[in-house]
C-alpha cells in the first residue's frame, strides 16, 4: 500500500491540518489562550530585560565619557606614585585634575556624629564630562575655592546635618556648602556602600591624614581633545605604568567594564525570569496533557475517517504552535512596557540614564523562544495522540503500552539540555548551570512524588465515615481525571520559588547578625599607628571594652612565584599564574600561634623563624587554589622595597565571616617585626549608644583611625538588600502571576472534567451549597497540599544553603511561611470556586449545552 503523498497533495494535506486545527480550536480558544498566557509573562520579563540590556549598552556607549568624567585616568596607590611615576603623568599632554581618595572617619561636631566615609580630595576642573550633582548646584564648583566640603546627601540626612554645618576630616574642619547627589560614573548602590565626602585637594595636607603607610589612592584625570593622543598615550604608557603598579583607564576601558558589570545584572534578572517561564511551561504542559486526554475521542474519529497519525498529531501541534505564537507575541508586547519601567526599578544600580528604545532583536528572540518552548513542553502530552487507535470509536479501549518511550526520552533530554543551555547563558558556568537545572528537576520529581503519594494515601486511608460532601470532595483527589498531580507540581513549584526568594534574603541578614552574637567581636579599629597603640588600648579599656585582638599589619606585594614574575606569567598563560596575583596589595600579619578562626589543613605551621632557616609562611587554602600554589612553592614578596623570599609551609582553612582580622598570608614571628606597619584592634561593644561614644572618643583623639562596627555593616547591608529585594520582588511577581495563570488554567481544565459529574449531581438533586462545599473541599485540599509541598522544598533548600553555603543554623521565618501558605491556599480556593460558578448558577441542561 502506498501512503506517500504526492507533492500537490502534500500542500493540500498541510492546509487541511492547519484548517482543522483552527476549526477544532474554536470551542476551546479561551482555554488554549489561558494555557498559553502562562508563558506570556515569562516571555514578557525576558523581552523586557533583554531590551533594557540593549538600551543600557547603547546608553553606556553614548555616555561613556560621562562615566569616566575625563578622556583618560591614571591611578594607583600613593606608594606607587613615585617621582618617576609623577614624571610620567606630567609628560602626558592635556588638561589635568588630581584626586586623592581614602577611607576615613569623619566627624560632625554639631550633632556629635561619626562615620567611616570615602574622602575624595580634588583639584582641577574634573569632571570634564558630566557633572557632580549637588544641592545647591553651584556647590559643585564652590567647594574647590576654600575650606569647604560636599557631603553625601543620605549621610547628611542620617546624621541630621545641614548645609552650613561643619564636618571634621582628620584634624581640619570644613564648612559643608552642598549636598552631594551624584558623582560621574557612580551608582546609588555604590554610594550606599562607600558614601563620599569631597574636599579640596589643597587642604588635604592640613588634615594630617597623609602619613606614611596611609592607604591613599591617587588619580590623575586628563582632558585630551585629540583622540589620537589618547590612543598614543594608551599604547606608549600603559605597560610601563602597569609595571609601577599604576593603572591607566580610557573611556573604552570604562565602557567595557561597566557594560560587563551590568550585563551580569541583566543575566541574573534573566535567570529569575526564566524560572517564571519554566513554571509557565510546566503549567502549559500539564494543561495540554488534560486537553489532549479530552481529545482522544476526536482523534479516534479522525483516524477512523482516514486521517494519518501524523496528520492528527500536527493538528494539535499546530494549535499549540499558533497559540504559543500568540502568547509569545502578547508576552513580547508586555515586555516592551516592562522595559519602560526597568530603568526606574534599577536606577540605584546603573550609572547612566537609560532611555528605552524598542529592541526588535530582543522582541524576535522572545517570540521565537515562546514558540519554541511552548512546542517543546507540549510534545510530551502530544505524543499520546500518535498512539490513539481508530478502534476507540466503537469501544472504550485501554491504550496500548506506548512504544514511544524512546521519543519521550529524547524529548526529556532536549528539555533538560535546553534548560541547562539557557541557564548557562545567564549564569556563565556550565557546572553551575547544570546544578541549577538539576535542582529544578529534583523539585519537579519531588513534587510529582508528593502528588502521587497524596493520591495513594487518600485512596488508601479514605475516611469513609465523614459526610457526603467531604467524601465527594476528597474522592476527587484520586478519581479518574483528577488534577492532584498537575496542581501539586505547578502550584508547589511556584510556592517553592517565591518562598525561596524570601528565605534567601532572611539568610543573608541572619548570617551577618549571627556573626556578632555572643562573645564574638563587633568592632574593628584599623590604621592605628605604632605610637598610638598604647593610648588606644587605654581608651578601649576605659570604656570597659575588651581587647580581643591587637594585630600588626604589614602591606606588601608579590614579586615572583617559583621564579616567575608578572611579565613571564602574562606572556605564558600555560604557567597558570594570573596577573591580579601580582598586582594586588597583600596585607599580612605575623604571629607564633594560630587563632580560633583558622586551622591547618595541609603542611605544617612553623610559628617562629629560626635564624639561618628559610621563611615558611601559611596561606589560606582557598586563596592558594586561586593563585595556583602548592606546599613547598617559593614566593618572593616585596615588603615596601625589601625583598623577602618565602616558602609555602602550610595551608589554613579560615572562617572569614567573623568581624575580626583574618589573613590570606600569615608570616611566622621573627621576620616582619621591623617592617613599617600599622595595627588593627578588635573589640566588642554592648550597646549602640556606648559604641557611638567610644567611636567619638577615638576619632576626636586619633582622626586617622578608621572604625568599622557591625551596626554599620548591618545597616548598610539592610539598605542594599532593601534595594535588591525590591528588584527581586518585582521579578518574583512574574513567577507569582505566572503561578496564578497556571492555577487558573488548571482550574479551567478541571472544570471541564468535573462539569458532567457536577451537572449529574445537580440533576439528582444536589443543592447549590452542596456543590460549593464539594468544590471547596477539593480545592482547599489541593491548595493546602500544593503550598505545603512547595514550602517544604523551599525549607529544605534554605536549610541546605544555610548549612553548606552560609554555615549557620537555619531558623525558618514562620510568619512569612504561614503568610505564603495562607495566600496560596486561599487563591487556589477562590479561583477554583469562581471558575465553577456557571455549574451552580445555571440549570443543568443549559450548562451541558454551553460548556461541554
Amino acid at each position, binding site marked *: *500500500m502506498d*501512503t506517500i503523498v504526492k507533492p*500537490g*497533495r502534500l500542500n*493540500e*494535506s498541510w492546509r*487541511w491540518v492547519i*484548517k*482543522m486545527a483552527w*476549526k*477544532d*480550536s*474554536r*470551542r*476551546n480558544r479561551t482555554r488554549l489562550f489561558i494555557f498559553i498566557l502562562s508563558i506570556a509573562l515569562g516571555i514578557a520579563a525576558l523581552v523586557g530585560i533583554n531590551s533594557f540590556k540593549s538600551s543600557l549598552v547603547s546608553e553606556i556607549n553614548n555616555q561613556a565619557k560621562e562615566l569616566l568624567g575625563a578622556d583618560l585616568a591614571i591611578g594607583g596607590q600613593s606608594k606607587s606614585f613615585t617621582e618617576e611615576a609623577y614624571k610620567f603623568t606630567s609628560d602626558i599632554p592635556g588638561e589635568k585634575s588630581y584626586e586623592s581618595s581614602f577611607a576615613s572617619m569623619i566627624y560632625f561636631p554639631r550633632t556629635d556624629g561619626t562615620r567611616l566615609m570615602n574622602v575624595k580630595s580634588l583639584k582641577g576642573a574634573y569632571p570634564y564630562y558630566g557633572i557632580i550633582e549637588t544641592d545647591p548646584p553651584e556647590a559643585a564648583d564652590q567647594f574647590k575655592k576654600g575650606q569647604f566640603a560636599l557631603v553625601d546627601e543620605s549621610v547628611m540626612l542620617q546624621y541630621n546635618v545641614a548645609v552650613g554645618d561643619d564636618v571634621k576630616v582628620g584634624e581640619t574642619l570644613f564648612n559643608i556648602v552642598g549636598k552631594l547627589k551624584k558623582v560621574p560614573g557612580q551608582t546609588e548602590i555604590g554610594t550606599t556602600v562607600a558614601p563620599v565626602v569631597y574636599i579640596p585637594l589643597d587642604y588635604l595636607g592640613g588634615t594630617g591624614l597623609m602619613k606614611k603607610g596611609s592607604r591613599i589612592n591617587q588619580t590623575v584625570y586628563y582632558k585630551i581633545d585629540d583622540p589620537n593622543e589618547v590612543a598614543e598615550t594608551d599604547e606608549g604608557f600603559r605597560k610601563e605604568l602597569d609595571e609601577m603598579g599604576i593603572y591607566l583607564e580610557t573611556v573604552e576601558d570604562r565602557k567595557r567594564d561597566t557594560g560587563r558589570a551590568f550585563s551580569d545584572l541583566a543575566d541574573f534578572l534573566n535567570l529569575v525570569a526564566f524560572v517564571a517561564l519554566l513554571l509557565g511551561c510546566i503549567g502549559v504542559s500539564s494543561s495540554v496533557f488534560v486537553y489532549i486526554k479530552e481529545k482522544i*475521542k*476526536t482523534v*479516534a*474519529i*479522525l*483516524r*477512523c*475517517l*482516514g*486521517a*494519518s*497519525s*501524523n*496528520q492528527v498529531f500536527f493538528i494539535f501541534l499546530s494549535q499549540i504552535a499558533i497559540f504559543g505564537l500568540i502568547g509569545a507575541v502578547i508576552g513580547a508586547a508586555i515586555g516592551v512596557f516592562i522595559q519602560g519601567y526597568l530603568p526606574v526599578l534599577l536606577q540605584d544600580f546603573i550609572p547612566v540614564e537609560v532611555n528605552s528604545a524598542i529592541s526588535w532583536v530582543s522582541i524576535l528572540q522572545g517570540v521565537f523562544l515562546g514558540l519554541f518552548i511552548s512546542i517543546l513542553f507540549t510534545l510530551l502530552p502530544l505524543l499520546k495522540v500518535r498512539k490513539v*487507535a*481508530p*478502534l476507540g*470509536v*466503537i*469501544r472504550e479501549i*485501554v491504550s496500548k503500552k506506548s512504544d514511544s518511550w524512546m521519543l519521550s526520552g529524547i524529548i526529556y533530554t532536549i528539555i533538560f539540555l535546553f534548560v541547562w543551555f539557557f541557564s548557562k547563558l545567564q549564569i556563565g558556568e556550565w557546572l553551575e548551570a547544570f546544578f541549577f537545572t538539576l535542582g529544578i528537576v529534583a523539585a519537579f520529581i519531588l513534587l510529582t512524588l508528593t502528588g502521587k503519594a497524596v493520591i495513594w494515601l487518600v485512596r488508601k486511608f479514605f475516611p469513609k465515615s465523614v459526610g457526603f460532601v467531604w467524601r465527594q470532595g476528597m474522592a476527587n483527589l484520586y478519581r479518574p481525571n483528577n488534577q492532584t498531580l498537575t496542581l501539586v507540581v505547578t502550584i508547589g513549584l511556584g510556592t517553592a520559588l517565591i518562598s525561596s526568594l524570601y528565605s534567601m534574603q532572611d539568610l543573608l541578614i541572619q548570617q551577618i547578625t549571627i556573626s556578632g552574637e555572643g562573645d564574638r567581636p563587633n568592632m574593628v579599629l584599623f590604621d592605628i599607628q605604632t605610637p598610638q597603640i598604647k593610648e588606644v588600648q587605654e581608651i578601649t579599656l576605659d570604656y570597659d571594652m575588651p581587647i580581643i585582638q591587637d594585630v600588626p599589619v604589614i602591606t606588601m606585594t608579590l614579586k615572583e612565584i617559583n621564579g616567575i614574575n608578572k611579565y613571564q606569567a602574562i606572556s605564558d598563560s600555560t604557567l597558570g599564574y594570573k596577573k591580579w596575583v601580582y598586582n594586588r596589595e597583600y596585607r599580612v600579619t605575623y604571629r607564633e600561634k594560630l587563632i580560633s578562626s583558622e586551622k591547618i589543613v595541609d603542611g605544617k605551621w612553623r610559628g617562629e623563624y629560626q635564624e639561618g632557616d628559610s621563611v615558611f609562611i601559611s596561606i589560606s587554602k582557598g586563596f592558594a587554589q586561586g593563585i595556583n600554589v602548592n606546599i613547598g612553592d617559593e614566593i618572593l614578596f616585596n615588603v615596601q622595597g625589601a625583598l623577602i623570599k618565602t616558602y609555602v609551609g602550610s595551608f589554613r582553612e579560615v572562617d572569614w565571616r567573623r568581624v575580626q582580622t583574618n589573613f590570606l598570608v600569615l608570616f611566622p614571628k621573627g621576620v616582619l617585626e621591623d617592617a613599617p606597619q600599622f595595627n588593627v584592634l578588635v573589640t566588642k561593644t554592648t550597646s549602640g549608644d556606648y559604641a557611638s561614644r567610644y567611636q567619638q572618643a577615638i576619632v576626636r583623639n586619633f582622626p586617622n583611625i578608621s572604625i568599622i562596627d557591625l551596626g554599620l555593616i548591618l545597616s548598610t547591608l539592610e539598605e542594599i538588600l532593601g534595594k535588591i529585594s525590591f528588584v527581586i520582588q518585582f521579578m518574583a511577581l512574574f513567577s507569582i502571576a505566572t503561578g496564578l495563570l497556571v492555577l487558573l488554567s488548571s482550574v479551567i481544565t478541571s472544570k471541564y472534567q468535573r462539569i458532567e459529574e457536577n451537572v449529574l449531581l445537580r440533576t439528582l438533586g444536589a443543592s447549590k451549597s452542596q456543590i460549593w462545599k464539594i468544590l471547596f473541599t477539593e480545592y482547599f485540599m489541593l491548595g493546602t497540599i500544593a503550598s505545603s509541598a512547595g514550602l517544604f522544598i523551599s525549607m529544605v533548600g534554605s536549610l541546605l544553603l544555610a548549612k553548606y553555603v552560609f554555615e549557620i543554623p537555619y531558623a525558618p521565618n514562620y510568619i512569612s511561611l504561614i503568610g505564603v501558605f495562607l495566600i496560596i491556599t486561599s487563591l487556589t480556593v477562590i479561583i477554583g470556586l469562581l471558575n465553577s460558578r456557571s455549574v451552580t448558577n445555571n440549570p443543568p441542561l443549559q450548562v*451541558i*449545552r454551553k460548556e*461541554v
Partner: protein
Amino acid sequence: MPSILSVSDLSKIYTNAHTKKDLKILDQINFNIEKGASFSIVGPSGSGKTTLLGLCAGLDQVTSGSIVLNDIKLDNLNEDQLAKVRNDHVGFVFQNFQLIPTLTALENVMIPLELRGEKNAESSSKDLLARVGLSERMIHYPVQMSGGEQQRVSIARAFSNNPKILFADEPTGNLDEETSQSIEELLFQINKESGTTLVIVTHDLELAAKTDHMIRLKGGKIISN
C-alpha cells in the same frame, strides 16, 4: 458478482493486561460479501459483532486469518496505510454518532473529502446534508442537535467520500422507534442510490431482516449464515 469483502479463517484474541490470560473473541470466521449487497451481522451482546466490524473495516489488526477489502489485503498494512484504505473505500455510521463536538454539522461531513484533498468538499457536503434533510442545521454543533439529527449528519458524512462499503454499528441503537424508522429508510435509500455495499451490525432482527444476507454470531463463532 465479485466480492468486496472476503474474510477467511479470522480469529481475534485479546490478552488481559493484568491476568495475562488470552480471551478468544472471534474464532475461525469465514464469509464473503458481494459488491452492492446489504449484509447484517447479528448476535447477542458479547458475541463479537463489533470486534468483527472493527476488523473488517481496518480499525484493528487480526490475530490470525485474512481480510481482503476491495482487493486490498488488510493483514500486513500499518496504521497509516489502513487509514488511507478507510478514507478511500470505507464509510462508517456509529451507534453513538461519533461526531466531532468542536465542528459544525457541515464541517463534520466535509472531513473525509478534505482528507482526500477534494476541491468541492463544501458544496458536496451541503448537497449531502440537504439529502438527509438538514439544510437548515448545517452550522449547528452536535450538542445543539437531537440524536436523530446527529445520526443524519453521521450518515451524510459516511457517504461523503462515495465509499465502496459502509459499516454501520447499531445505527439505530440510540434512537426512538419513529426516528429509527426514518434513519433506516434513509440509510437503505442512499445506499441503494450510491450502489454501496452495506454491512450492519445489530441485535435488531427486524433491521437485519431488511438486508440481503445475514450471519449470526455466538461466542465468537458463526452459528448460521
